[in-house]
């Protein structure tokens, strides 16, 4: 069963480094090899970009969507569903969660999409450079009020969150450091843009106003000088706390659920050695996220962390749509489809606050659980969708299926998914009520299709399926 192990491991990699993969893709990737697949994933430029032109032909309103949903979400969802660079999107989603910026204040999905683009382009590169770009990103400047941060009147919002939520974490700096960092970013703002009326939105552009910058001496984390913003970032990334902070985030997002950021100053990581490994790579590679991810995905702590992560709503929705297929082309209704993660508690492009989403089991409440199960069930129960058809065809190729074979076949092709003995017994008991299924006659084939759909629905409703 070594081959089956390879499939399971590859499925794990693709769920975490992407949004899952259908069986034919898993087989192709296993043939290519695990390490080679990791290399492909961390080098997205080797794969073609998403065809944005096709999106804009059919949904032109997705280009400059303004402040109201769902056209911005349509744009994002189209990328997530169609990307051939799954890790690029996954990393962008990661940074969207860490550098959480929301439409609730920005009121401008165009700008949020541009920020996501920044994460796509720079998210796997040099973290120092990413922070500099983030500090120049008008969406972020507005979100954290740095346009109100003046040489004569300091606004500490950006300066504080840069240290607390974007790089070091509480406890690694003083209030004075916040003040000094904020002073260093005075004058970092954006040009007045052409307003939205009457012809639609225009983008913001970064602007550095030297006359509004406090050029005086600052004392920051033990360094002294007439620091500007970039100097602050240079000092920040040198801090041991920074490497640890970024690597704990990566671990929490890609490897296994842990308590979230606010707990980090009091709780140690569950796998300190793993964090040490990542931290060392981060520093040795000069903050190269790609290098850290290479180590992460090839590590045994990653390979052993199957189903240790509660799927986020984005993973639920995108993973399901990519599994069942048929949602690649723009179509009417893409708006509601793209809002599905929000119905499950993750309003993409509009996180609840700068702290990002509450993850892990906090994704789950009575409403969101029903929303996620019903959404996935409705898709996997539809045999007209190509991915569901592919699952049925693979089962069909095995001939007549006993109840156990039906259950195990469905579990296998949906993941492979690992379920507890109690869960499996319920599934098998249900299958036993149907008896053997087969596709040898037209009538029985119809029933068999239906039974597979029902079994798939029951499986995606299990507790175990909520994990990746």
């Amino acid at each position, binding site marked *: 069963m070594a081959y089956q192990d390879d499939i399971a491991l590859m499925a794990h990699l693709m769920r975490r480094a992407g949004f899952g993969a259908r069986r034919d893709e898993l087989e192709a990737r296993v043939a290519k090899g695990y390490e080679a697949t990791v290399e492909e994933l961390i080098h997205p430029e080797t794969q073609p970009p998403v065809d944005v032109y096709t999106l804009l032909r059919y949904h032109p309103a997705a280009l400059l969507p303004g*402040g*109201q949903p769902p056209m911005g979400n349509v744009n994002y969802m189209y990328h997530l569903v169609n990307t051939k660079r799954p890790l690029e999107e996954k990393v962008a989603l990661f940074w969207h969660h860490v550098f959480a910026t*929301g*439409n*609730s*204040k920005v*009121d401008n999905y165009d700008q949020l999409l541009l920020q996501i683009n920044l994460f796509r382009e720079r998210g796997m590169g040099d973290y120092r450079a990413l922070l500099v770009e983030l500090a120049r990103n008008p969406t972020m400047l507005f979100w954290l009020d740095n346009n109100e941060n003046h040489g004569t009147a300091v606004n500490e919002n950006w300066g504080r969150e840069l240290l607390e939520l974007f790089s070091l974490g509480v406890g690694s700096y003083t209030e004075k450091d916040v003040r000094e960092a904020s002073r260093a970013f005075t004058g970092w703002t954006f040009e007045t843009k052409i307003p939205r*009326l009457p012809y639609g939105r225009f983008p913001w552009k970064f602007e550095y106003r030297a006359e509004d910058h406090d050029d005086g001496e600052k004392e920051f984390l033990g360094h002294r000088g007439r620091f500007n913003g970039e100097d602050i970032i240079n000092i920040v990334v040198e801090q041991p706390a920074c490497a640890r902070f970024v690597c704990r985030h990566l671990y929490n997002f890609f490897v296994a*659920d842990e308590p979230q950021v606010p707990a980090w100053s009091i709780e140690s990581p569950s796998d300190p050695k793993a964090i040490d490994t990542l931290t060392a790579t981060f520093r040795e590679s000069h903050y190269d996220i790609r290098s850290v991810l290479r180590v992460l995905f090839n590590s045994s702590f990653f390979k052993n962390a199957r189903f240790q992560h*509660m799927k986020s709503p984005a993973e639920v929705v995108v993973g399901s749509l990519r599994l069942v297929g048929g949602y690649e082309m723009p179509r009417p209704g893409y708006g*509601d489809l793209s*809002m599905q993660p*929000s*119905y499950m*508690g993750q*309003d993409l492009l*509009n996180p*609840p*606050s*700068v702290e990002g989403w*509450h993850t*892990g*089991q*906090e994704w*789950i*409440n*009575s*409403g*969101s*659980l*029903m*929303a996620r*199960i*019903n959404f996935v*069930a*409705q898709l996997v*129960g539809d045999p007209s969708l190509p991915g569901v058809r592919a699952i049925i065809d693979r089962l069909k190729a095995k001939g007549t299926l006993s109840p156990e074979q039906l259950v195990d076949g469905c579990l296998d092709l949906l993941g492979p998914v690992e379920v507890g003995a*109690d*869960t499996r017994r*319920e*599934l098998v*008991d*249900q299958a036993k*009520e149907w008896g053997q299924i087969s596709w040898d006659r037209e009538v029985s084939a119809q029933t068999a299709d239906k039974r597979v759909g*029902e079994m798939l*629905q*029951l499986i995606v*409703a*299990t*507790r175990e399926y*909520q994990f990746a």
Partner: protein
Amino acid sequence: MAATQKDPVLVVVQLSGGNDYLNTVIPYNNPLYRDNRPAVGIPDAQVLPIDKNYAFHPAMAPLKKVWDEGKLAILHGTGYTNSPRSHFRSMDIWHTCEPDKVGTEGWLGRVAREYDPNKENVITVVSFGPSLFRALAVPGVPVACVAGPLEKYGFLPTVQERELRLKVLDRFARMYAPVVGSGVMEYLGTTGLDSLKGADVLKVAPQRYASTVKYPDTPIARKLQGIAQVHLAGLGSRIFYCDHGSFDTHAGQNPGHGTLWSAVAEGLDAFMMDLRQHDHADNVLVLLFSEFGRRVHDNGSGTDHGAAGPAFVLGDKVKGGHYGDYPSLKAEHLVQGDLNPSMDFRSIYSTILEKWLKVSSKPIVGRAFEQLAFLN
């Protein structure tokens, strides 16, 4: 489930998109109204005067009836200072009572936590719409979100065959049996069973419901009928939430704005009639609000985002009338071309919380606000 049937109940109807104040409560005798509304003004012959100064939009006839009965309070000039004119931000402020920072807890979610700290009734709050309104969101507070028809509410609606469905849901319950001490799996188990229970409880509402009242065929009327069904079933739900829109009438405001208001007014008319026929109206209070009002001057076809707006409270226990002052239309009193808010929205909340829902308002809205007189 043991709630007495006459506990006070709040129904919120959110007018999403920014309802136009000037064409809702029309200052029809003010020449500045005509000056500012060359394209989307409502002609004198069509307005529904409620007194010598103000008139309702012609589409609001059913609400005029409630006004005449003395059961509709108009809350003038609602809003807050530094209105951001963004749908999301404005709505968030109304939902979280946090005008100055990003808040994450909804004001009604906090009420639900007060009412049912141990989550004994998973349907204390019922929301009609696909997503959870932030006004209801507080971590750990269950909210039933009914996205489609109430009859279809529950797990796995795509498994339709009755017998199979019962079996599958039974298996679901067994598969979610909490395993004590297993952390996240236990939590998932409890949540799944809570959710299943909520669906089971709500399921009886449409079964118990019988009414002669015909609701109009509009989304808001369907939601209000769903609320009536749950309320009349006596399941102990205390807070209902729904919305209608989009009131974002940048273009083609006439007749669009009228269509929106007919749907709301006629829907509410049917809803109140339904409750009265079942003798279940007297413990229901309805609040209507929108995230902001619209620009004073029209843009040739519609109106753009503004600031102050009207809110409405109606119900059998409401003392009808005007509360607060209609903000001045004079150019020198406008803020960026908008009506300047004269009533903090948290005054309305405080009044409802203290006088209707009977909970202490300060922990919910942040501090003390003026109490209004629309409730005894």
